């Protein structure tokens, strides 16, 4: 397939891996081993597992799979709110597909649907708006979630609904922001990350500038990265090259898609419709300041949280769940106590087992489960 296969060329991959391995001498004396590089975005995690990239890398490099899967980090209380909204008889609840399976404290949207709630899968918020026009007698709610990547399309849909005077359409807004979250990870005491692969899709909207603090304040190199396997390998090479040169910069590997200034019409739409929340709750990471957005008061008629009574109960994560430590790289997914036994994709306990982009689900689906569980057992025996 054109413009896809070029970025999956095994010969080029081999050459890149060789270049990466060659940088060892210049890096390992000055850094911990294994070196920890975090890919923030769930899309990157998916690519890494789908193409077996970890197996290609030398063992002195470890990839830490960050919290950038918006479906995974949704707290249970918010899912409960979704279910409560969806179960209202007047509501037609619309959502992206992979949010359907996320467990709430009692049930997922998929279960609510089976029990009779009108939950429909859509591919875009505009599809939800179409449904609102088609069913003027129903309240159509769109479950808005995702990082800055999906914010412009939701914002523009709200603006269109306003322009067209569609009154039976609203958002249940769960959009989250990237930068405060990276900052929270960098500020946590058990943080060991040496460098970051920055999310390509988010950067397409926000540009390079918001990531500068990582390089300038925290002195960690960061590279905006595309989603094909060669993109990931090249970005890892760029990160290592920065370390070898003693540089800490924001570099843009994904320049074919990401303009350095981002997408200003998209940013304008976001600013017009949304404002920062004081804090937002994350599954596995707890509450993070300014890490979510809500709708501005001017758009209250389109805000499901204002329009309908939402329970808004806070549900704490299960105690045995170690998602937070996995997200920060202090343990590997299979080192979590419940990985593969109490927590599986069939009955996910923690955030990272929920979506196919979650690190634990990726290890579970694409990895060698028996071998991982044996490794965990061996390591548990004190030396």
């Amino acid at each position: 397939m054109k413009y896809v296969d070029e970025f999956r060329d095994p010969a080029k991959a081999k050459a890149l891996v060789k270049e990466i391995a060659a940088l060892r001498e210049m890096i390992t004396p000055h850094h911990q081993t294994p070196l920890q590089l975090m890919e923030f975005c769930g899309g990157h995690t998916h690519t890494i597992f789908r193409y077996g990239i970890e197996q290609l890398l030398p063992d002195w490099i470890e990839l830490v799979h960050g919290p950038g899967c918006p479906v995974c980090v949704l707290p249970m209380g918010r899912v409960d709110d979704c279910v409560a909204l969806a179960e209202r008889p007047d509501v037609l609840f619309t959502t992206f597909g992979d949010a359907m399976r996320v467990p709430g404290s009692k049930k997922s949207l998929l279960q609510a649907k089976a029990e009779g709630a009108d939950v429909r899968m859509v591919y875009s918020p505009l599809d939800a708006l179409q449904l609102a026009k088609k069913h003027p007698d129903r309240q159509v709610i769109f479950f808005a979630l995702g990082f800055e990547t999906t914010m412009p399309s939701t914002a523009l849909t709200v603006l269109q609904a306003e322009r067209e005077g569609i009154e039976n359409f609203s958002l249940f807004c769960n959009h989250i922001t990237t930068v405060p979250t990276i900052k929270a990870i960098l500020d946590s005491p058990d943080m060991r990350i040496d460098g970051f692969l920055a999310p390509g899709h988010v950067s397409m909207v926000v540009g390079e500038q918001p990531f500068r603090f990582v390089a300038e304040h925290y002195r960690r190199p960061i590279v905006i990265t595309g989603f094909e396997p060669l993109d990931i390998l090249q970005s890892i090479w760029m990160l290592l090259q920065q370390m070898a040169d003693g540089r800490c910069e924001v570099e843009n590997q994904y320049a074919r898609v990401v303009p350095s200034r981002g997408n200003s019409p998209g940013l304008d739409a976001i600013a017009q419709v949304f404002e920062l929340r004081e804090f937002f709750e994350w599954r596995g990471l707890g509450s993070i300041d300014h890490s979510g957005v809500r709708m501005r008061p001017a758009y209250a008629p389109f805000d499901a949280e204002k329009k309908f009574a939402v329970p808004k109960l806070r549900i704490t994560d299960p105690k045995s769940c170690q998602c937070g430590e996995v997200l920060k790289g202090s343990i590997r997914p299979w080192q979590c106590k419940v990985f593969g036994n109490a927590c599986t994709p069939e009955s996910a306990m923690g955030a990272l087992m929920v979506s196919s982009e979650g690190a634990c689900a990726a290890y579970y689906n694409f990895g060698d489960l028996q071998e991982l569980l044996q490794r965990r057992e061996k390591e548990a025996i004190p030396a």
Partner: protein
Amino acid sequence: MSQPRSQGLRAETITLAHGAGGKAMRDLIDSVFVEGFESPELQKLEDQARLDLARFTTEGDRLALTTDSYVVDPLFFPGGDIGKLAITGTVNDLAMGGARPLYLTCGMVIEEGLPVETLRAVVASMKTTADAAGVAIVTGDTKVVHRGAADKLFINTAGVGVIPRGIDIRADRAQPGDKVVINGFIGDHGTAIVDARGEMSLENTIETDCQALNGLVGCMLDVCPDIHCLRDATRGGLATVLNEFAEASSTTITIDETAVPIRPEVRGMCELLGLDPLYLANEGKLVAIVPAGQADRLLATMQAHPAGSSSSIIGEVAEGPAGRVVLSTGFGGNRIVDMLVGEQLPRIC
């Protein structure tokens, strides 16, 4: 005969009366099913089909019996419809045991309000498909249910066939060294259904691969009677069938990603939605596990058959942990291909 005589069917839509056992039902059966299927057995209007045993015993030494229900939405999609599916699906289930499919039954559950024209079109499609596959529909049943109690039309077909002497196809027969063969492009049916639901506004129209495979299987058994495993990769796709083989035979199966035939349109949709074509449904694809020494000859035979022109050897059976399927990615890494937990759901971004 005790049934009332038919007056011909004048109604344009199916109502509850057509399932009530009286004149209206008789009209429906005569005018749509008996006429449409043109089966001498059906015309007798007995409560059961009566089949000559000799026909079975001359063709083989075991009967194969299977049943499947068909509930697809929409009823008509590019390259096929629920009727075609109801014939090929059951014919293929028989063929995958090495059986020669002979007779089918047809049970229909109809939601009131279905246009009679639609039903006729489905029946015509069943007849054409059955004729092409060399099977006869010999008995049937009709029920009409209240609006909302079924989605337009559900079909159940059962089928019976004969397994020739000496054929022993089982999921537990895969042996290290065996080759894995598939008869063409994967994921066409799954993609066609997404496309036909009109949710995606795709630029390309992809047709379902829905086809009867008994002809192809017959040719395959002629050149390679010792096929070890054979299954059609329907729901759950290629990945699921391979996992079933690996598990039943306690072997590891390795697949070369670059050898698996996938159309660019199907790959494109999968890229767009974050779906994995290995799990997409097919309705005319079989996966065979065969002794290595016979693989090339078998492949040539398959490629010469219209239902197998894009056949390919995609991998092999290896020693290794039991029940494992490993895909060597075109990129140079490996990944484990497991069974799906539930349905594949499109990813957010």
